[in-house]
């Protein structure tokens, strides 16, 4: 307990250095500015801004990342409220009531309750992260390679199959990611896999190329293809920005309840802020004293899910920092940020670079405060960004998206891959395949493979080692249940439907 305080104090000392404060400020500002653009969620915000941090030192860049992460989240909810285009499924609940509030001329209080709720939830969840992380690290130190492999199996299944609409489509996405993860030189034997003699492929598929292609180029193609369907309408922020006493009274409990949903679920290797936000939404709907306002713009329906969303974002940092396990697309991008400096999150990083880890955690607090101070006064600026005409907006997004690749690797092969992933992202959106499992598969696939091979090398090739370790056996059991559960439940549902 005291260790955590000491470590956090040390992290604060790192984060509060003027240069690092400046990085956090730039991160928060850029994160919000990009995140507020319609159709751009936090994951894409982080992916697009990765190249900007290339030249910084790891500490400064991770601190900027913390700001980009939270800024992107905040920007996403602004878009959800003002034009009803949630950049990602986690903001869908916010858009439900928030956009109705904006239409009723209460956009100001909706933005305020989401900003203050995000601050409250983010702060509580970051405290949770600070206390849970060392405890988990102590536990994770005992993990052998077979346990890590089993843990990744849990993450694979939960991210792709358990919580999506269709386990088959989720798993298909995951396996596309796993296939992409195989491309390149095998680290243990030096043999090239799936490179087809193309030298650029020997290094493997860049995570940023994949993410930017799938998210940015794919999104632009998809929006362009169905432009004739929807006319987006920007709701002006009318009236007071500030919450009334009544608003405060109705908001504070949903904030806390949302945090209680968001943090624990985010911290599980289950993936997604979707579940806690919708849990929070339905809970608030049930508990509210104003049930008739729900569906017409109830402030509880913004306050709760927004808090849940932010708390789960901090929650996903728990498995990311302590185990190196990304459970959301955004967390996967954060991991790519670490890997850009050859850093691997996990128990070792806590031991070897405590300044870096705790500096990052402390920066999360600072980024939260900055967002609260910056965003409400600057809401006018963000709204103006939202008003950029669609043709220029998407043209700009594509220029920005390709620019990162051009700056990092200006080769025809890399740019063709970016375009190819864009087409893949477009087709996946069109046929309703989830995108995040592809990114998670690309990042975690090679790690899972090397852990498994290490485990088997230690056991002299005996696969029973996976079941002999109690941790690994339990985790594999969990993965199996999580894999079969949706099929069994679906079967039961069908059985019931037949009975009627």
């Amino acid at each position, binding site marked *: 307990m005291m260790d955590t305080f000491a470590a956090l104090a040390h992290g604060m000392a790192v984060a509060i250095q003027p240069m690092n404060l400046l990085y956090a400020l730039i991160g928060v500002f850029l994160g919000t500015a990009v995140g507020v653009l319609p159709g751009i969620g936090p994951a894409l915000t982080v992916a697009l801004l990765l190249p900007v941090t290339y030249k910084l030192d790891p500490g400064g860049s991770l601190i900027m990342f913390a700001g980009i992460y939270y800024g992107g989240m905040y920007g996403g909810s602004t878009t959800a409220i003002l034009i009803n285009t949630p950049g990602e499924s986690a903001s869908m609940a916010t858009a439900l009531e928030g956009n109705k509030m904006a239409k009723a001329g209460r956009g100001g209080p909706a933005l305020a309750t989401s900003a203050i709720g995000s601050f409250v939830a983010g702060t509580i969840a970051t405290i949770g992260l600070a206390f849970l992380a060392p405890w988990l690290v102590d536990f994770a130190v005992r993990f052998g390679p077979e346990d890590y492999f089993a843990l990744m199996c849990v993450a694979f299944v939960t991210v792709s199959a358990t919580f999506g*609409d269709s386990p088959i489509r989720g798993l298909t996405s995951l396996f596309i990611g796993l*296939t992409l993860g195989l491309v390149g030189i095998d680290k243990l*034997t030096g043999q090239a896999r799936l490179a087809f003699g193309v030298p650029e492929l020997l290094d493997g598929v860049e995570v940023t190329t994949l993410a930017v292609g799938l998210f940015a180029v794919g999104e632009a*193609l998809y929006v362009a293809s169905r432009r004739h369907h929807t006319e987006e309408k920007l709701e002006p922020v009318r009236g007071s920005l500030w919450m009334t006493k009544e608003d405060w009274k109705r908001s504070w409990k949903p904030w806390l309840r949302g945090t209680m949903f968001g943090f624990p679920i985010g911290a599980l290797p289950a993936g997604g802020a979707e579940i806690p936000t919708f849990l929070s939404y339905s809970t608030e709907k049930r508990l509210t004293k104003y049930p008739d306002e729900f569906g017409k713009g109830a402030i509880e329906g913004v306050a709760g899910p927004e808090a849940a969303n932010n708390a789960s974002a901090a929650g996903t940092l728990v498995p990311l920092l302590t185990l190196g396990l990304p459970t959301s697309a955004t967390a996967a991008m954060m991991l790519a940020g670490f890997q850009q400096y050859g850093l691997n999150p996990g128990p070792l990083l806590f031991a070897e670079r405590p300044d870096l880890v705790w500096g990052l955690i402390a920066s999360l607090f600072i980024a939260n405060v900055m967002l609260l101070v910056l965003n409400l006064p600057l809401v006018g600026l963000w709204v103006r960004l939202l008003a950029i005409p*669609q043709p220029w907006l998407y043209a700009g997004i594509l220029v920005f998206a390709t620019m990162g690749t051009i*700056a990092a690797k200006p080769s025809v092969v890399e*740019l063709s891959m970016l375009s190819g992933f864009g087409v893949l992202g477009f087709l996946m959106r069109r046929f309703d395949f989830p995108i995040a499992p592809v990114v998670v598969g690309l990042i975690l696939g090679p790690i899972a493979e090397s852990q498994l*091979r290490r485990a088997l090398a230690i056991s002299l090739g005996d696969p029973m080692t996976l079941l002999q370790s109690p941790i690994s056996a339990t985790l594999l059991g969990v993965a199996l249940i999580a894999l079969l559960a949706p099929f069994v439940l679906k079967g039961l549902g069908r059985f019931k439907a037949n009975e009627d």
Partner: protein
Amino acid sequence: MTSGDPAQPPRRVDRAGIVIAALLAGLAAVLVFDARGLSSTTMYGMGPEAMPIVVASGLALLAIGNFIDALRGNLPERESTDPVPVFLILVGLGLLIAIIGFGGGFILATSALFVTTSAAFGRRAILVDSIIALVMSILIYLAFDRLLTLSLPTGPLERLL
């Protein structure tokens, strides 16, 4: 739950779904083909060819799963799409790649992408958009080149700056 159930509306076989299943099966075949060329040099445990085989098996199973879904017409409904804008953006990306590949430089390449994308989203003011694109890409180029000292591909325009 048979397709002959009179209570169920007749479901149509989803052709796109069949194509997806075929593509997945094809990908699995490529993986197996590629893995056959790898030599297993490890004494114990798995060699480099094991994982591609595992992934290929998964893909093959998923191809079957997607095939069944397509036969049953279980795919979610799709809205109509307009292929023209998609094609325009792809032309823009192609131009970008070609200009960079042939040494035309960052500014021209990026401007081409900007103008075609903007046109894909319904704008018809190509001259105005070209000027905007040129100004923007020159500013980005200068910012990257001078401030971040990241080198972007240079062409005739960049050498003038």
